[in-house]
């Protein structure tokens, strides 16, 4: 129905049976993910200041080196998964990257020594886990109905129309990774110290949402 949502593919990279393609849209998203991943790589965490209520005392939270290393690793993995999801031209591949983003998001705050944040991360992890069900189910219906998982083939409009339910499932799967109305746990995870890493949590789910909007408009 609508041709070339994100613009004309500028460059197609062949990865066996899967293609990676860059349109003006995906390239914008990819570059943003890349920028923030580089920021994660080169910046050190901030020292979050905490006020003790009821008094005028305050203290800063220090992040130990081992914790910082682990969280930086997870944030970079999250950035790489996001970048992959931005440029992949295959629906199943996209769902895999989405699942990986969910896991790394839990990893980013898993090392934080705050019960509140860890509780939120646990709940978020459960939802991310459950979100893979509609996600993969959506991809499966795509494959079953159209006989193709390639977004470039879907873009051409020659394949059978994708059923609305498959699009809905794909959408719900991505929304489960932390978009509204399932944002409560993610907002609490944001209270963790370590700004450059925590930002990746939100960036990844926003970018995934932006990409899935493009995907459901194809075909």
């Amino acid at each position, binding site marked *: 129905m609508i041709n070339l949502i994100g613009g004309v593919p500028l460059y197609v990279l062949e990865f066996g*049976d899967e293609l990676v393609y860059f349109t003006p849209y995906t390239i914008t998203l990819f570059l943003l993910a890349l920028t923030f991943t580089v920021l994660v790589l080169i910046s050190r965490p901030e020292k979050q200041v905490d006020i003790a209520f009821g008094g005028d005392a305050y203290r800063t939270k220090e992040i130990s080196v081992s914790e910082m290393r682990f969280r930086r690793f997870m944030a970079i993995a999250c950035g790489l998964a996001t970048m992959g999801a931005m440029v992949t031209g295959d629906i199943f*591949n996209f769902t895999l990257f989405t699942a990986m983003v969910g896991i790394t998001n839990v990893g980013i705050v*898993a090392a934080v020594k705050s019960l509140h944040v860890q509780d939120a991360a646990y709940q978020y992890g459960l*939802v991310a886990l459950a979100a893979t069900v509609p996600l993969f189910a959506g991809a499966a219906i795509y494959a079953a109905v159209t*006989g193709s998982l390639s977004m470039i083939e879907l873009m051409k409009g020659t394949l059978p129309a994708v059923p609305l339910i498959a699009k*809905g499932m794909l959408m719900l799967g991505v929304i489960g990774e932390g978009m509204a109305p399932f944002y409560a746990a993610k907002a609490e995870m944001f209270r963790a110290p370590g700004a450059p890493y925590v930002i990746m949590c939100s960036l990844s789910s926003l970018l995934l949402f932006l990409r899935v909007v493009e995907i459901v408009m194809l075909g």
Partner: protein
Amino acid sequence: MIIRRISHILCNYDNLTRLFAGACLLLFIAGILLLPLPYSEKQLYPKTFDRNSSLDPYDRGGPPFTQVTIVSQYPENSPTAGLVTSYLTPFSLFLSQVTLHLGTTIVSHPGGIIDEILYNTRGLDTVVEATILFIAFAIASYIYRKG
């Protein structure tokens, strides 16, 4: 007020799983109602099994297949699709060329088993899947070691 009541439910992350389960349930019920979906016959697994095909999922044993007819999206990009060694890492490929005892996907890296499940047809997927496993393992081991 109804808005305040809804936002009270939404803002508590303990309700999150229940909410998401409810949303999934609604969507799946809608899916069941829409059920007779058309099925594209040009798939990897046909609906009727050809017991003589090398792709038969219930086939145990027999001679290993060398070339099978797999419907791939871009056959020109993946000439070796279906071969056991079609998506080896460069190092595994080197091993498989040097000796017969090393370098098949199953023994060379954890993604190899998934390779077999996917019948070696899809390149990047196997890498991502192995990475997901690795990340999950890294988180679990970090939390276990730090108590």
